C-alpha cells in the first residue's frame, strides 16, 4: 500500500490528467445544458494537454531554448510534446468556437440551451 502511494506521487501529473479526463467525460455525457457539455469537453482537452506535457518532462533538464551554447540533447527536455500540445490547443479552440456558435443558433431558434427541451421542441416541430 505504501509503495502504491509512493508510485502515485511519482505519477501525480498523469493520474491528475486521467482524473480530469474522467470528470470532463462525465460532464460531456451527463449534463443536460449544452454549454456545460462544451465545458466538459474543454476539461477533457486540458487533461490530454497535461498528460502530453508531463510525458515530455525530464528531471533536471532545462527548457528547449539554446542556453550557454550547449547543443547536447541531454541538456534539454523533450521539445516534441510542446509542439503537439500547441496543435491540440489550436484544434480545441476551433472546435469549441464551432460548438458554441451552433449552440447560439439553437438558442436563437428554440429559446433554450437545455438538450432535452430542444429535443422535445424539435420532435413537436417535426410532427
Amino acid at each position, binding site marked *: 500500500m505504501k509503495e502504491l502511494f509512493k*508510485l502515485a506521487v*511519482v*505519477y*501525480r*501529473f*498523469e*493520474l491528475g490528467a*486521467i*482524473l480530469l*479526463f*474522467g470528470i470532463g*467525460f*462525465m460532464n460531456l*455525457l*451527463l449534463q443536460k445544458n449544452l454549454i456545460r457539455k462544451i465545458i466538459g469537453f474543454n476539461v477533457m482537452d486540458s487533461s490530454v494537454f497535461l498528460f502530453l506535457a*508531463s*510525458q*515530455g*518532462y*525530464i*528531471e*533536471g*533538464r532545462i*527548457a*528547449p*531554448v*539554446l542556453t550557454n551554447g550547449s*547543443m*547536447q*540533447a*541531454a*541538456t*534539454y527536455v*523533450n*521539445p*516534441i*510534446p*510542446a*509542439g503537439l500540445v*500547441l*496543435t491540440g*490547443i*489550436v*484544434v480545441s*479552440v*476551433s*472546435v469549441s*468556437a*464551432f460548438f*458554441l*456558435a*451552433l449552440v*447560439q*443558433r439553437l438558442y*436563437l431558434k428554440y429559446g433554450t440551451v437545455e438538450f432535452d427541451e430542444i429535443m422535445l421542441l424539435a*420532435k413537436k416541430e*417535426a*410532427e
Partner: protein
Amino acid sequence: MKNEWFRALVRWIDGEPAHDRRIRTPEGQRVRRARRAQRTGEQFSDQAAKRFAWGYRISAVVICLSIVCTLLYTVFQLPLFGAADSPANNEVVERYIEKGVEETGAVNFVTGMILDYRAFDTFGESSVLFLAVTSVLILLLRDKNNISEEEDLLTAHEFFIEREMQDLILQKVVAVVMPCILLFGIYVVLNGHISPGGGFSGGAIMGGGLILYGASFGILAVRRFFNRRTFTAITTAALLTYAASKAYSFFTGANGLETGIPLGTPGAILSSGLILVLDICVGAVVTCTMYGFYALFARGRL
C-alpha cells in the same frame, strides 16, 4: 437520377419536407415516421423516455468508470515521470536539438521544430483556425439576408448600449494599456525564434488587446480600422504567404537545390530564414481569428 438527388439536397437545405418517397432525407424520414406512428396509434410514452434516461445515465457512469480504471491501470505501466530513458526521448529529439540550430537557425528548438521540420503541420493548424472562424461567420453573421426581426431588435439594443453606456475610467485605462499589449504581442511574435513565444502566443496576446479595445470602446470603434474586408485580406494574405514560402522551401529542399535564404547568426532578430516570416503570418491569422470570434459571438458582425 443525380439531378434529382441534387434537387432533394437543395430542398432539404431550404428546409422543405421531401415529398419524393424514394429519396431518403432526414426530413422525409421524420415525416414518414410520424405518419407511421399516427397509423398504428403508437404514442411516445413518458415511461419509456424515463426508462431510457435512467439506462443512459447508468451506462454512461459504467462506461466512464471502466475507461478511467483502464487508464489508471495503464498509467502505472508507463515509464517513470521525469525519467531520461523513456522511449519518447528517442533519436528524433536528439536530431532536433543537436542539428536544430545549424539547420533551421532558430535558437528556440520548439519554434525550429514546428515552423521548419513540421511546418506543414503548422500550416494545417492555421487553416483549421481559418476554417473555424469561417464556419462561425456562416453561422452567426447577421447580414441583410440572414437576420430575423428578433435579431434586428437585439442588434439595435446592443448598439444602443454601446453608444450610451461608455465607461470613462475603463476607456482611459484601455487607452494607456492597449498600445502596451499590442507592442508586447508584436515583441512575442518577432522573438519567436530566439525566445519562448511565437506566432500563436503573440497572436493570442494581440487578439486579447483588440478584444479589450472592442469591449471598452465598442465594436463600431474597432470597425474604423478593422472591418470584414481587412479581416479577409489579412487572413488570406497571411495563409497564402505561408503556403507560398513553404512550397518554395519544400520544392528546393526536395530537389536538393540551394534555397538562397541566408540563415543568419543564431540569436539575432533577422535570422533563421523563413521562420520569422512564418511566425508573422501565423500571428496575423491568430489575431484576426481571436478578434473575429469575439466580434461574431458578441455582436454577430465583424
